[in-house]
């Protein structure tokens, strides 16, 4: 009990004193995960839209694969990315292993299926609602897709937030491809794992608190967006 209290005090001190190591780690975490989410949206949203409104062969299969990919174990993704990026791997010449870029790549692979599958679900539901009216009005396909994306925008924001939440809390993949190198690839989750095993509980706890706060903020954001859109009957 004494230990925990002491560590908590030290942790609070680290946060309040603006410890530069701490904030460097937080900054990198946010940078990596935000970049990963943005790339995932660029890849996943068009894919989700295509599956939602598309009428092509293999659509069902694509949906099944996507849903399976949603549950990819992060350590396995980390391992596969590692194999590709390691010096002897096919992309070894790019010398990306143990860089933030490698971490972003791994997280994009983890999050893109989530963004695609969740946005597909949201857009499909809305499409089903609008479809007959749109056909009655002869709405061109591209206008229909634009309208779906716009009318589902509040729900789509929650997809981005969910993706970010998953990315920032993920440890297995970034540990393997980032290597938790101080001042280079050390992010919150990997630092917590390392500092805990070293017995440096204060830093681990401080990071843990920040991580929980971020996760709380993300969920509060999710909640706000949802209630706001529902209140306006836009959702």
């Amino acid at each position, binding site marked *: 009990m004494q230990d925990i209290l002491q560590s908590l005090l030290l942790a609070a001190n680290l946060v309040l004193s603006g410890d530069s190591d701490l904030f460097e780690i937080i900054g990198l975490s946010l940078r990596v995960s935000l970049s990963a989410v943005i790339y995932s949206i660029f890849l996943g949203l068009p894919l989700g839209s295509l599956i939602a409104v598309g009428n092509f062969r293999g659509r069902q299969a694509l949906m099944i694969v996507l849903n399976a990919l949603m549950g990819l174990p992060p350590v396995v993704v980390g391992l596969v990315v590692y194999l590709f990026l390691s010096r002897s791997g096919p992309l070894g010449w790019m010398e990306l292993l143990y860089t933030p870029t490698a971490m972003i790549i791994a997280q994009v692979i983890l999050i893109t299926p989530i963004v695609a599958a969740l946005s597909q679900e949201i857009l499909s539901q*809305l499409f089903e609602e*609008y479809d*007959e009216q749109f056909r009655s009005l*002869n709405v061109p396909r591209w206008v229909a897709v634009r309208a779906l994306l716009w*009318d589902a925008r509040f729900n789509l924001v929650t997809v981005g937030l969910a993706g970010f939440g998953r990315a920032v809390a993920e440890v297995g993949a970034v540990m393997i491809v980032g290597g938790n190198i101080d001042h280079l690839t050390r992010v919150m989750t990997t630092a917590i794992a390392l500092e805990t095993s070293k017995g440096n509980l204060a830093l681990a706890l401080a990071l843990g608190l920040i991580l929980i706060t971020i996760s709380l903020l993300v969920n509060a954001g999710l909640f706000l967006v949802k209630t706001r859109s529902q209140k*306006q*009957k*836009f*959702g």
Partner: protein
Amino acid sequence: MGQALHHPNIGPYDENLLPLVIESAWYDVGGQNLINGLDLRIESPDITVIMGSNGAGKSILLRLIHGLLELTSGAIKWGGKATDNRLRQQQSLVFQKPVLLRRTASQNLDFVLKLPQNRRLKRGPNSSTSAQLLKMVGLHDKANQPARSLSGGEQQRLALARALATRPKVLLLDEATASLDPASISIIENIVLEQKALGVKVIFVTHDLAQAKRLADEVVFMSRGRVLEHSKATEFFLHPKTEVANAYLSGTLSVEETHQ
């Protein structure tokens, strides 16, 4: 209210669209014949009212006519042509349950007015804006309200305004006044009569006998996916030819009978 929409290039008798001919039409879903060898020929440019019990197939027939559903067998021709995109462009269907976009009332209308194929309407001399359309159905003070937060009757009126936005030559209305108050019903009926005067072919599904008598020039009476009667309105209301229609009109047609 009741401001007229003009159709610059449509005469009252559009030989391109009429007659509407439906020949031995069958429509099956899951082994059920929802439309049952239906034959119908509509030549009158005036208002056709479709009546019949719940489940008779009225809504399905409107969807088939509008080309949203495809017949299992048989044919539906407008002036000799099957409904394609170009023909559908000249028709508006107001669904029994309005489907409105998750936007404000006026944005719902702007969406239709701004569709690429409707831009020419906007440039026309008699173009109508979303504000004018809203005024026509008495929703001018609801312009900025999210459409899905409108009351049921308001949503139906908005759906009608949207249907008129494309200035159709054919107006298909599926119980468009079902949840309206008496004042709104008379607004809508006046709009419908105005459209008729402008040469728009109106096909109107309703269960409201008084309304049918007010609007109908001819009546199509359906039962179990077929047309049982097709006659002049005066004739239909005074001397229905079939037992079923007679029972329907006098309110004694039981649900069991209709589904035997």
